C-alpha cells in the first residue's frame, strides 16, 4: 500500500512539473495584463491539434513540430493583442469585459476545432524518444512522463531567467508589482503588454504539444477542463505569482495522481472541488496575500 502511494507521489511530481509549466502562461498574462485568458485550455488544445496535424501529414516528431508551432503562436499572440486585447483593456471594466470576450473566443476555437477535426479522440506517437521505460527507486516509470517533467523544468527556468536577467523581463516583473510605478520609470507599457501576451501564448503552445501525453488524448472540448485545471493551479499558488505556480502545479499533480490511483473515475471531479474549496477558503492562494472581501 505504501509503495503505491510512493509511486503515485513520484509520478505526481513529474506530472506536477508539467502542470506548473502548463499554467505558467495563464499566470504570466494575468499578472501583467490583469486579464483572465479563459481560452487558455483551448490554446493548449489547438497547439496539440497542430502537432497532431504536422505528425499526420509529415510524420514529424512533436519535438520538431515545436520549431514550427512556437513562432506561429508567438505571432498569433501579437496579432491577438493588437487586434483584440488592446481594445478590451481600454473598456470600462476591463477585467470582466475581457473575461466574457475570452469566453466567446474559447467557444469559437472549440467549435472551429470540432468542425475541422471532428469529435474523435486523437493522440500523438510515443516512439519519438529512444527508451520507453526507466526504473527509479525500483519503480518502472514511463520515460515520456519523466522527459516532459524535465523539459518543463528547463522551460520554467528559461522563463524565470527571462524575467530576472533581461531588461524586458525585469520590466515585466515591475509591471506585475505596480503598473503606475513602472510607467513612472518610463517602461514602454504597450510593448511589455504585447510581448507578455505573445510569450504567454508561446509557453502555452509548448505545453500544448505535450498535453496529449499527460491527458491521454486530444478532443475538441477538453479546453474547459484544462482551463479549470490551470486555474486551480494558479489559484493554489496565487494569481499573478509565477513562482507560486510551480508550487501550485506540484501540489495539484501529487494530489491528482494519488486520487487517480484510488478512485480514478472521480479524479476530474476532485479538480473542480479542489478549486472551489481553495477559492472559497483562500482565493488569494497559499502563497498570496489576502483579497477576499466581506
Amino acid at each position, binding site marked *: 500500500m505504501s509503495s503505491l502511494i510512493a509511486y503515485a507521489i513520484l509520478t505526481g511530481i513529474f506530472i506536477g512539473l508539467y502542470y506548473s509549466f502548463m499554467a505558467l502562461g495563464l499566470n504570466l498574462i494575468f499578472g501583467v495584463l490583469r486579464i*483572465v485568458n479563459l481560452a487558455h485550455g483551448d490554446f493548449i488544445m489547438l497547439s496539440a491539434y497542430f502537432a497532431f496535424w504536422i505528425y499526420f501529414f509529415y510524420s514529424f516528431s512533436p519535438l520538431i513540430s515545436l520549431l514550427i508551432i512556437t513562432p506561429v503562436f508567438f505571432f498569433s499572440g501579437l496579432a491577438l493583442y493588437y487586434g*483584440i486585447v488592446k*481594445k*478590451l483593456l481600454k*473598456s*470600462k471594466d476591463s*477585467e*470582466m*469585459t*475581457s*473575461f*466574457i*470576450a475570452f*469566453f*466567446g*473566443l*474559447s*467557444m*469559437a*476555437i*472549440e*467549435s*472551429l476545432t*470540432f*468542425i475541422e477535426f471532428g469529435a474523435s479522440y486523437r493522440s500523438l506517437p510515443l516512439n519519438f524518444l529512444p527508451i520507453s521505460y526507466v526504473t527509479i527507486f525500483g519503480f518502472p516509470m514511463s520515460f515520456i512522463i519523466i522527459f516532459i517533467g524535465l523539459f518543463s523544468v528547463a522551460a520554467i527556468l528559461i522563463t524565470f531567467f527571462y524575467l530576472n536577467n533581461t531588461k524586458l523581463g525585469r520590466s515585466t516583473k515591475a509591471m506585475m508589482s505596480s503598473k503606475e510605478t513602472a510607467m513612472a520609470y518610463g517602461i514602454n507599457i504597450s510593448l511589455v503588454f504585447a510581448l507578455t501576451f505573445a510569450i504567454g501564448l508561446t509557453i502555452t503552445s509548448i505545453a500544448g504539444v505535450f498535453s496529449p501525453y499527460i491527458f491521454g488524448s486530444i478532443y475538441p472540448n477538453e479546453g*474547459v*477542463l484544462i482551463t*479549470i485545471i490551470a*486555474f*486551480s493551479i494558479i*489559484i493554489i499558488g496565487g494569481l499573478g505569482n509565477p513562482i507560486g505556480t510551480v508550487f501550485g502545479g506540484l501540489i495539484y499533480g501529487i494530489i491528482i495522481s494519488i486520487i487517480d490511483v484510488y478512485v480514478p*473515475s*472521480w479524479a*476530474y*471531479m476532485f*479538480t*473542480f*472541488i479542489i*478549486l*472551489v474549496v481553495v*477559492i*472559497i477558503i483562500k*482565493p488569494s492562494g497559499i502563497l498570496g496575500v489576502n483579497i*477576499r*472581501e*466581506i
Partner: protein
Amino acid sequence: MKFEKELKSVLGVIVFFIIFYFLGPYFYSNQAFFVTMLLFATLTLSFNIIYGFTGYLPFGYAAFFGLGAYGFGIGVKFGLNIMLSFLLGILLSVGLSVIFLPMLRLKGAYFAIANLASFEAVYYIISNQSLTPITGGPYGLSTSSVFSPNIVYLISLILLIVIIVVTYIIKKSNFGLALKSIRDDQTTSILSGINVSLYRGIAWIISALFAGAAGALYGWYLGFFYPEAVLSITFTIFIITFTIFGGSGTILGPIIGTLLLYGIYDMVGVSFSEYFTLIFGLFILILMLFLPNGLKDILKKYFRRELP
C-alpha cells in the same frame, strides 16, 4: 411619469406573450420552438436577476437549469406525482444555490471561475456511472410516462409571466435598489446599512428557483434526456449572449435578446450546432469589443432613451 411608462411596457410584454402563446403555433407548427423560447426567456430573466442586478456572473448557471430537469426526472422515476416532481426539481436547484452561497463572497472573475468549476463538478456527479440507479448516469432519465406537451406549454407561459412580474417588482422595490448598490459598490452599500450578504443571497436563491422551475419544465417537455441535454454549457452561452445583447439589468432587454437571437438561431437551422457555437462565440467577442452593454447602448446613444 417614468413609473407608468415602465409599467406599461411590462404589461405590453405580458400581452405580447399571451398573443404569442395563442397565435404562434398557427404560423409555425413547431411547438418545441415556442416552449423552448418561453423557457429561455424565463431562464434569461432569472439569470438577469443575479447578473443584471448584482453584477455576479455565474458561468455555471446551467447547473440550476439542469438540476431542475433532473429533480423532475428523478421524481417521475421514483413514482412521485407531477406536482411533487416539479417541486423536487425546484428544491434541488434551490438546495444547490444554498450550497453555493459562500461563493458569493468572491468577486468578479473569481466568482465566475468558481461557478464554472462547480458546474463541472455537478455535471461529473450527475453523469457518473456509479450513480446510475438514481440519476441514470450517462444513460439519462425518461419522463415520457407523464409527457403532456400542451400543459408544459401553458405552464411555461405562466412561469414567464410570473418572472416578468417578479423582475418588475424587484426593479421597483428598495430590494432592487439595494441590489444595484451592491453591484456598483459593495463597501459603500455596507456603510449605508445594507445587509449585503443577505440581499445578494436572496437574489441568488430567487434566481436559482426560477432557473430550476424552467429546467423542470424543460425536462418534462423533453420526455427523455441525458446529462448533456440539460446540463450543457451551451445554455450558459445562450443566456449570457441574450442578456448582454438585450441589455442586462433591464426587464425588456433579456426578453428582446431571447426573442431576436433565439428566433434567428432557430430560423437558420439547428442542425449544425457546432456552427452556432462558433457564431455565438464570435458574437460574444464582437459584443464585448464594440457594444459591451448591447442594445441598451444603441438606444441611449442614438435615441436617447432608457430601455425599461
